[in-house]
């Protein structure tokens, strides 16, 4: 299966979870394929809002993204996001990074909502339910799920188990578990020791062998 085939059925209006933290674990070829698929009116959930001309930045430049849920949209070269945001063409839901991770984890884990201390008493908790538990303030946060997850892993075995490389792991395992369809680009195919599996095959729907990203 090639990258375009793997994402070709993405419906307009889908919520897409996109892994990666900066360049580490960024599924570049899958994002390009999503652009080629023509899918539009997307909600993108990712730590960043793209930089330069590739990846999420290209999706935004081509006006495919109506909303982004992220922790850190501002980057050295996030001009396409900046422009769309200032023009009012893209909605921004800013989420503290750990709440973003925990909400995605909750989405995959069947948790209905959870109380987190992060953001309590700040403007990012405005309008949200709060509660003091054992003397400490918490904000109630809800799970995030995706119709599609795009993830980059290091290796897949023939069953769909995955391992990652170094800090390229980041959002991959939790996004793979939180989406209806999970597409993974891998650098290599091979064997994985059952003790070393990071993402079990149950969370993986489609694998695209791309090789090592440039």
């Amino acid at each position: 299966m090639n990258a375009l085939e793997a994402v070709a059925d993405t419906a307009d209006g889908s919520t897409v979870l996109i892994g990666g933290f900066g360049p580490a674990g960024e599924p570049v070829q899958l994002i390009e394929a999503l652009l080629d698929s023509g899918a539009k009116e997307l909600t993108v959930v990712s730590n960043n809002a793209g930089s330069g001309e590739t990846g999420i930045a290209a999706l935004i430049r081509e006006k495919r993204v109506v909303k982004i849920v992220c922790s850190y949209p501002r980057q050295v070269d996030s001009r396409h996001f900046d422009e769309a945001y200032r023009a009012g063409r893209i909605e921004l839901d800013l989420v503290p990074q750990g709440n973003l991770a925990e909400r995605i984890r909750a989405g995959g884990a069947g948790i209905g909502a959870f109380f987190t201390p992060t953001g309590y008493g700040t403007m990012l908790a405005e309008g949200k339910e709060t509660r003091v538990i054992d003397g400490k303030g918490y904000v109630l946060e809800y799970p995030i799920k995706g119709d599609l997850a795009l993830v980059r892993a290091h290796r897949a075995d023939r069953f769909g188990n995955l391992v990652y490389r170094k800090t390229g792991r980041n959002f991959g395992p939790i996004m793979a578990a939180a989406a209806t369809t999970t597409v993974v680009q891998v650098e290599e195919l091979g064997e994985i020791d059952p003790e070393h599996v990071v993402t079990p095959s149950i969370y993986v729907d489609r694998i695209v062998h791309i090789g090592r990203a440039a």
Partner: protein
Amino acid sequence: MIDRQTLAKLVAADIPAGAFVNLGIGQPTEVADHLAPDSGVVLHTENGMLGMGPQAHGDDVDLDLINAGKIPVTELPGASYFHHADSFAMMRGGHLDVCVLGAYQVSARGDLANWHSGAPDAIPAVGGAMDLAVGAKQVFVMMNLLTRDGKPKLLPECTYPLTGLRCVSRVYTDLATFLITENGVVVRDLHGIAFADLQSLLDVPLIEELS
């Protein structure tokens, strides 16, 4: 007044041997250069690693091995990798001994403002700032005590949007080191300034530490 490097050295000297530490982006990163090699201090980076080593250069650069500031780094013996939810669980769960952060403002109660300038046209970006503020056993702030135009950054109340409430335990500045305590703001070290002169710069009542 002490320079940036001396300040980083001062913070490094206060980190206990064997501590698990997260150094925020920017000035706090420089603390790593002053940790004794045998200190056993283990650095956490919130994008999924314990045992982070110094910045990578040349052939050591690996774009799958970066820190929270997206700078290529290296791996030290004893390192481990984990996903983002596990990494922030480690932080939120109070397992890190110390987190060192920069700040726009700190209040006398230890409220922190370090993520948003408050400018109405700014594009907001929070990253892990709010998680770092609430998670570690101790939060150290490193900053200049005054803004470029001479306004104090240690204040009765923060005027910038908050990052976290009552989370800062110490404030290391170019002019003095402050301990945020139940009884008020205690001055621990003075860097070439008299206590009375320091007090005259700030609207926060200061307590002189007896030593």
